[in-house]
């Protein structure tokens, strides 16, 4: 038999190095396929079997997957933008302009980051509406809906904190207005605004705090909740297909 691509592929999968990295081994039996998913740290968030119906475009319009894709694009481009951006009052605006006009591919990365941010807000909202109108928020998925609401708030907060970083007029006044809206919170509003801005006005402290929130704290919290969100899809019985389901999880007492 002449060598085929599939043959080489299977040879590669039987090598000792491959087997030491991927634990599931060769073979195309149902067991092997199930193990390939279940024993992989990334894939194990998904279930080893799913309904063909739940993979159809019409079931989800792939809105959650696309939200994740924008989040990953934003993480990758954001890390690269951090290499040229200093979160300080004299430098922030100039660095943003340098990214546009001086840094190679800087304008591409900045625009990709900006448009993905807009797309992520849109996709997260669309995902939420799709879940709502399909009734996919109903038990046993009600907890995952709550996590989704928190993720929506995190998305908006990431968008808001990123808005200040170019340090232009639009950024400055948008954060001034937003911070004053924050101070309308009863009792502790002014204190929340003070802690948020690190002062009484939008200034150096506010820029640095928003930078740390935008680049470290919020992405970490969002990443953690995204992992729980995906894991709960599997634990709650897979994607909602509109059929009558027996509730997943431990039985009641």
């Amino acid at each position: 038999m002449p060598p085929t691509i599939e043959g080489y592929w299977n040879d590669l999968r039987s090598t000792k190095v491959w087997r030491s990295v991927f634990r599931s081994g060769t073979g195309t039996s149902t067991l092997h396929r199930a193990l390939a998913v279940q024993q992989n740290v990334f894939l194990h968030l998904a279930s080893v079997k799913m309904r063909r119906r739940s993979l159809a475009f019409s079931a989800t319009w792939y809105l959650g997957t696309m939200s994740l894709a924008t989040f990953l694009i934003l993480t990758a481009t954001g890390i690269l933008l951090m290499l040229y951006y200093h979160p300080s009052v004299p430098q922030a605006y100039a660095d943003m302009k340098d990214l546009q006009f001086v840094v190679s591919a800087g304008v591409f990365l900045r625009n990709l980051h900006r448009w993905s941010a807009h797309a992520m807000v849109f996709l997260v909202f669309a995902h939420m509406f799709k879940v709502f109108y399909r009734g996919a928020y109903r038990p046993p998925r009600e907890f995952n809906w709550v996590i989704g609401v928190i993720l929506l708030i995190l998305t908006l907060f990431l968008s808001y904190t990123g808005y200040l970083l170019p340090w232009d007029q639009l950024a400055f006044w948008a954060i001034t207005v937003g911070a004053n809206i924050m101070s309308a919170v009863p009792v502790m509003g002014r204190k929340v605004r003070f802690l948020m801005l690190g002062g009484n006005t939008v200034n150096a402290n506010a820029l640095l705090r928003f930078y740390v929130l935008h680049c470290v704290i919020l992405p970490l919290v969002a990443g953690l909740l995204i992992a729980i969100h995906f894991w709960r899809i599997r634990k709650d019985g897979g994607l909602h297909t509109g059929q009558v389901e027996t509730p997943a999880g431990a039985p009641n007492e």
Partner: protein
Amino acid sequence: MEQSKDDVTRRGSFIKIGIGSLAVAGCGAAVFGYQFLSPNVLYEPSPIANVGKPDRFPPDSVTVDLVAGIYIMHAAEGFYALTATCTHLGCLTAWKPDLNIIACPCHGSKFNRRGVKIDGPAPRPLAWLKVWVNDEGDLLVDRSTPVPQDHFVRV
């Protein structure tokens, strides 16, 4: 040996001590965290602005100080100063000489030159600020101290 429910066990008291110390440590971390996040020194501009000699401002004039964010008004009754920060959501307002009003670019609030709201979402009039003359004869404005309306300073 049989144990009744009221007996204090070694494990039980260790758990209580453990949870208690964690609670104390948690409260301490919350207090330290709050204090850490509140800056003790702010490198913000002084609220007191020196706007120069009073004769800079001709009678019946409105002068904008964009850096300080205030209006210095010279009316027939005397001098007074208004904050230029809109009372709605904190945008910087602008003086419109042709319309004889102060207008906010963000959400369309309008004020007359006494700071009284004419139109728009602003909940309060623009604050009147404390104005006085120092020993060198300069006009000073304290942006952190509001004064009652119609509080004029004669020079």
